[in-house]
């Protein structure tokens, strides 16, 4: 679409700052969204979860320009929609692809005609609208049902028409509410693959509200909303990587996935150039590190005498997946060694309070750690 050409590749598809939203007025005014911050990049697939009443639907309607923003900033494909109402919101909606759980197809129109409704305000010439609708229906597996009316189709087939209607006009942002709820495994997968293709090839940002755990694997990010706030915002690939690192370590291997995920979620990424010091022996410890990429050297320069480090000065090389920095946090003692990078190193970092909280939560975890310390001596 013409307007989309103005969108820089770096512009987030969705950029939300300080968003608050209220329902009702006067004494009945109730806040439903609290201080939402959210960036969704082009090509990203975000799954939103959360119990009903958590505000995720309200957030989705705000992103879709289906209601006016009351407080805060919402930018859709580079366009600020705070301050827009009524007619002003209409052009924004046309740039978005909507897939509704209640597919709301016109019984009186055929599959192709229903899909064509979404092209009415597109810049695609009339001549190619029909082939476009036909093509997209083929891609969702309805090539045999083009001229059927919804009442002659199954729930899953209708759902796929709704999906086709939501994406036929090549939107740069797709908002989908349970798009696979009515689909069986095979057709659900087909739709999911189509989403993935739209994200990867066309750089389309996709925001899905779903409880269908069969399709969680397409998510780049999973956002969990609770009581009107974003309770967690997980970069899936990173989280999975951290958890894999954690389980590879003996220390964490017996933790449940839930515990691991919780730890992973709290970790941030810190990058160090080559030959830089990450921690210095003797300083107070404040962080726990896992190496994502790169290598580090662990140096104990002082003679023995401290309670835990009885061994001689030595150098240990650590690489991807290894961790360090835990002893000072657990024992409330100064760093027992210096850690230097030998090449550029990316680390996942957990702050001391988060680390201690994680340890406290899990006695076996603490016990395991102590076992490790015992073995190290």
């Amino acid at each position: 679409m013409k307007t989309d050409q103005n969108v820089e590749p770096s512009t987030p598809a969705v950029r939300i700052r300080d968003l608050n939203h209220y329902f009702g007025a006067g004494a009945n005014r109730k806040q439903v969204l609290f201080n939402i911050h959210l960036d969704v990049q082009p090509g990203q697939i975000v799954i939103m979860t959360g119990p009903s009443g958590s505000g995720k639907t309200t957030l989705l309607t705000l992103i879709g320009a289906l209601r006016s923003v009351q407080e805060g900033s919402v930018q859709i494909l580079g366009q600020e929609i705070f301050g827009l109402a009524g007619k002003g919101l209409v052009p924004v909606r046309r740039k978005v692809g909507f897939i509704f759980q209640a597919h709301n197809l016109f019984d009186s129109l055929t599959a192709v005609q229903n899909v064509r409704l979404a092209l009415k305000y597109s810049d695609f010439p009339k001549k190619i609208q029909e082939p476009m609708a036909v093509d997209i229906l083929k891609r969702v597996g309805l090539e045999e049902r083009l001229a059927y009316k919804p009442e002659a189709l199954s729930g899953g087939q209708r759902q796929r028409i709704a999906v086709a209607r939501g994406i036929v006009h090549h939107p740069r942002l797709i908002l989908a509410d349970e798009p696979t709820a009515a689909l069986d495994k095979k057709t659900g997968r087909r739709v999911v693959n189509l989403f993935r293709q739209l994200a990867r090839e066309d750089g389309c940002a996709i925001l899905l509200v779903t409880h269908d755990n069969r399709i969680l694997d397409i998510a780049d990010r999973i956002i969990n909303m609770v009581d009107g706030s974003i309770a967690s915002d997980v970069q899936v690939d990173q989280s999975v990587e951290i958890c894999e690192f954690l389980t590879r370590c003996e220390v964490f291997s017996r933790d449940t996935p839930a515990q691991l995920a919780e730890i992973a979620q709290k970790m941030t990424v810190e990058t160090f150039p080559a030959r830089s010091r990450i921690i210095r022996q003797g300083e107070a410890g404040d962080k726990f590190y896992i190496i994502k990429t790169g290598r580090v050297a662990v140096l104990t320069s002082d003679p023995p005498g401290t309670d835990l480090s009885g061994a001689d000065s030595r150098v240990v090389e650590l690489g991807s997946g290894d961790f360090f920095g835990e002893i000072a946090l657990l024992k409330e003692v100064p760093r027992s060694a210096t850690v230097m990078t030998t090449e550029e190193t990316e680390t996942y970092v957990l702050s001391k309070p988060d680390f201690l909280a994680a340890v406290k939560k899990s006695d076996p975890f603490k016990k395991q750690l102590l076992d490790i310390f015992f073995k190290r001596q």
Partner: protein
Amino acid sequence: MAQTGKPRLAWAMLSHNKKHLLVSVTGIAFAVLLMFVEIGFLNGLLDSETLLAKQLNADLVMTNQKKSYTYALNPFPRERLARALEVDGVRQVQGFYMHWIQLKNTPGQKIHSIMALAYDTALPALLNPEAAALGNALKYPFTALFDRTSRKAVYGEFSPDMDVELEGHRVRLLSGFELYPNFSTDGHLLMDRDNLARLLAGNGSDNIVETPEIGLIRLAPGADPVRVKQALEAHLQDDVRVLTKVQMIQIIQDKWKSEQPVVEVFGLGLAVGFVIGMIICYQILFTDISDHSAEFATLKAIGYTNGYLIRTVMAQGAYLAMVSFGPGLLASLAFYHILQQITGIWMTITFFRAGGIFLLTLVMCVVSASLAARKVIRMDPAEVFG
């Protein structure tokens, strides 16, 4: 590819459920019928009152200056008609006589007035093939033609070759013709003027032949009616006037419209039909919008404007008017036929009247559609999610 192509939403929604469409069309057709019946009565009145004037075989007509409508009798001296012949361009004149006479159909039956029309039957005074064909036979004394459409409830049955009692005389009815009863008379008889004179001779009236009701003036070929009319008006006394047939018909209609509240009565009836149609149409479309509120809200959510959706609903109204008018017209024709049988009033639907009712139907449906469409404006696209 079958059934694809550009989505024509308004028509598709309207025609999707055939049963629903049938009910809708029936409703609107009913309103169309109501309106047609109202204008049918009004026009039936005006048409039937002017039917005789329309059938007069004349280029210009002469009447008493004070004569208002056809059946309000007000004759003029025959001498005026004779003088008309002196004017250039006048080829022929003929007196046309009208008189209420007393009729008793069968012995023992009550006496009723009937309108007798009379002229010199050697010259056809009416553009009525049946009357013209029997011209000579009517020269026989005490013969007449009967109006086949006369109200049977009043006069009983007329049949060819039967005898009736007119003004105490036995008269032979030769056969029938058609002129239709109206609000002034329940029926007509047609006879030679000499026979009318014979019937009235006994009751002390002046010689009827000397007092025609209408003068029929026929012009020479190529004569200009307007110019001849002006010449006649200049030539004749002020107690008569000369009219074209169109003028005469207009005067009759104006008279009825101004002196009787017919326009008001039937106009009100027409308005009631219109309003009923609006209510029916509103109800149909409002229900339709309500049934499709989720779909409409979805369209709003994907960027359709209120304006577009309102136009869609209005188009639905227009389509509804178009498909309902035909059945409504057919039903009205049937109903006119029945009414004509019952009342004897001549009722007809002209192209012009049908066009007028069609426009009214269109306005009715489109206006009520635009009212129903206000619901679309209130729909919240945000409700589609969740």
